[in-house]
């Protein structure tokens, strides 16, 4: 499995760089547009409808037949979203969960990845083997005992319950370890000769080289922690500690008919990631080839 992940990662880069690789070749009109344009449209239409519905006046969304484009733009949905729900709290909660997940992943997983890749110590092989083995355990198997454990620790219903499972992951450790293995040993040896200790070598020499791997890890962690639904659904019943996804799922059952509000909520939950995607597109595509772990 490692081999294919490595291969996918390196090849993903080439794929992302591919079409720009040869600018000299003349671009002629291609029949592929006839295939690609309708498909691309199919993929975009749901998002288009989401934004249009979020900006529609309430009465038009339950009209028959409904207009594809609203007759006038209205902020009803967003007004209802911000005045009748705790969406700002949920947004803040989600930012806290994702933010701490990213920060903690970057620190703990790079430390552990470096340790397992480069340091020699007793128990290293057992440790790394155990961590890789956990990737095969489905999360569904862990839900019940984790819930009971967190209940005993008094974490249930608080934001802590949403945060703790995201602090580190086997995938993150594995990813960072693979990266550090690829860095030439000479770098560290040079540092050691100059009198740096293990910590200084890691912090000043190796970590700055790891930026691409850290970016990958950050994107992956953002995507999965921001969008997580099942764990908050189990662990949090208290509206003050809801995450955005949980809030959305909650709307879905309680406000079935208020489409403008539901769609405004959808926009609030999705737009940050869409914007992020557009900015970090290239890195994002590489990250996807690496992860494939979207839940």
């Amino acid at each position, binding site marked *: *499995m490692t081999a*294919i992940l490595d291969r996918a990662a390196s*090849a*993903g880069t*080439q*794929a992302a760089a591919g*079409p720009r690789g*040869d600018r000299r*070749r003349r671009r002629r009109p*291609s029949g*592929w547009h006839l295939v690609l344009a309708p*498909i*691309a449209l199919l*993929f*975009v239409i*749901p998002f288009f409808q989401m934004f249009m519905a979020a900006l529609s006046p309430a009465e038009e969304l339950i009209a*028959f*037949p*409904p207009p*594809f484009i609203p007759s006038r733009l209205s902020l009803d949905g967003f007004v209802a979203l911000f005045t009748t729900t705790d969406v700002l709290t949920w947004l803040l909660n989600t930012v806290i969960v994702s933010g701490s997940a990213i920060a903690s992943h970057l620190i703990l997983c790079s430390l*552990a990845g470096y*340790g397992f890749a480069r*340091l020699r110590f007793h128990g*290293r092989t057992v440790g790394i083997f*155990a*961590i890789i083995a*956990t990737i*095969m*355990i*489905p999360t*569904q*198997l862990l*839900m*019940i*005992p984790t819930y009971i*454990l967190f209940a005993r620790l008094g974490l249930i219903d608080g934001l802590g319950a949403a945060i703790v499972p995201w*602090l*580190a992951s*086997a995938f993150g450790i594995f990813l960072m370890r693979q990266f550090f293995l*690829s860095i*030439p040993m000479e770098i560290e*040896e*040079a540092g*050691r000769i100059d009198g740096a200790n*293990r910590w200084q070598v*890691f912090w000043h020499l190796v970590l700055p*080289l790891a930026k*691409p791997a850290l970016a990958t890890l950050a994107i992956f962690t953002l995507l999965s922690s921001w*969008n997580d639904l099942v764990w908050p659904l189990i662990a949090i019943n208290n509206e003050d500690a809801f995450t955005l996804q949980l809030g*959305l*799922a909650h*709307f*879905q059952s309680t406000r079935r008919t208020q489409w403008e509000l539901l769609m405004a*909520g959808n926009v609030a*939950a999705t737009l940050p990631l869409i914007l992020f*995607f557009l900015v970090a*597109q290239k890195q*994002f595509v590489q990250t*996807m080839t690496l992860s494939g772990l*979207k839940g």
Partner: protein
Amino acid sequence: MTIREQREDVAPAPQPAGPARRAPRGGRTPTRRRSRIAVLREDLGAWLFVLPATVLVLGLSIFPAIWAFILSLQEWDGFTEPEFVGGENYAELVTDEDFFAAVQHTGLYTALFVPMSVLAGLFLAVALNRRIRLIGLYRTAIFVPFVASAAATGILSTYLFSPQYGLVNNVLRSIGLPAQKWLEDPSQAMLVIALMSLWGQAAFTTVLYLAALQDVPTELLEAARLDGANRWQAFWRVVWPQLAPVTIFTTIWQTIGAIQLFDLVYTTTRGGPLDATKTIVYYLWEQAFRKLEFGYGSAVAYALFGLTLLITIGVVVYSRRRGMEAF
């Protein structure tokens, strides 16, 4: 920048100045045997790097996984004393019609989703692997739904496929076809869920195939063309066999994901209509967190784990026999 490029960016480090200046704690000084205390200090120092993440990961997986097995041998509602019942939960599972119904629904979804997603990925990768105008725009359009959460996708599905005012029925009506009940029809609901999953995840298989396509040696294709193969033959005879490892990998990966379907069911149908979309994980969630049958829920979870392992091992053995290296 990528991992592989990075490797080349790194300039070769200067060689050590002389044999006298060795790293003091490199652990490779053969001249003097290190004392036990020095070894211990070294180990402790290294464990400080790996310990926090290791404790978190193992503590939140191996320990609960073992606990889940113990739970699966008990009958427990979380409040009263747990009662040890041995294999009773598993025995019950074998004759549980609701569980088998959930297995069937999960199987239906898997059978719909996995082939669609692998074929769509292959097709989209071939289509997007061109040097034509607007290709960046097409790629963005297909990749961006990947960021949408299951909750957002679920709400969107309910809206687009609404029998009364949904866009999909509106289109059907305008081209003269009868409107459908979609998520409200037991025979159609799973199809809608599979289609919307595909919308959100097509990017994943596409990007894997796109990566693999770049790896196919151009010499092979040129040789095939010289031998008189047309595009279609060249693709099926030359490119497709080269893609076999990726096909196996994506099939396994998507299958494992498919048999764990929960989120999208929860945010669209909640298992309905008439339980038609109640999947294994939905059933597990219901048993454990609605009915508080922690023991029985754990047995369901272990059954799911077993199923996952069987499928993975099956595909790996099959591909090894066929001489295809996927793992």
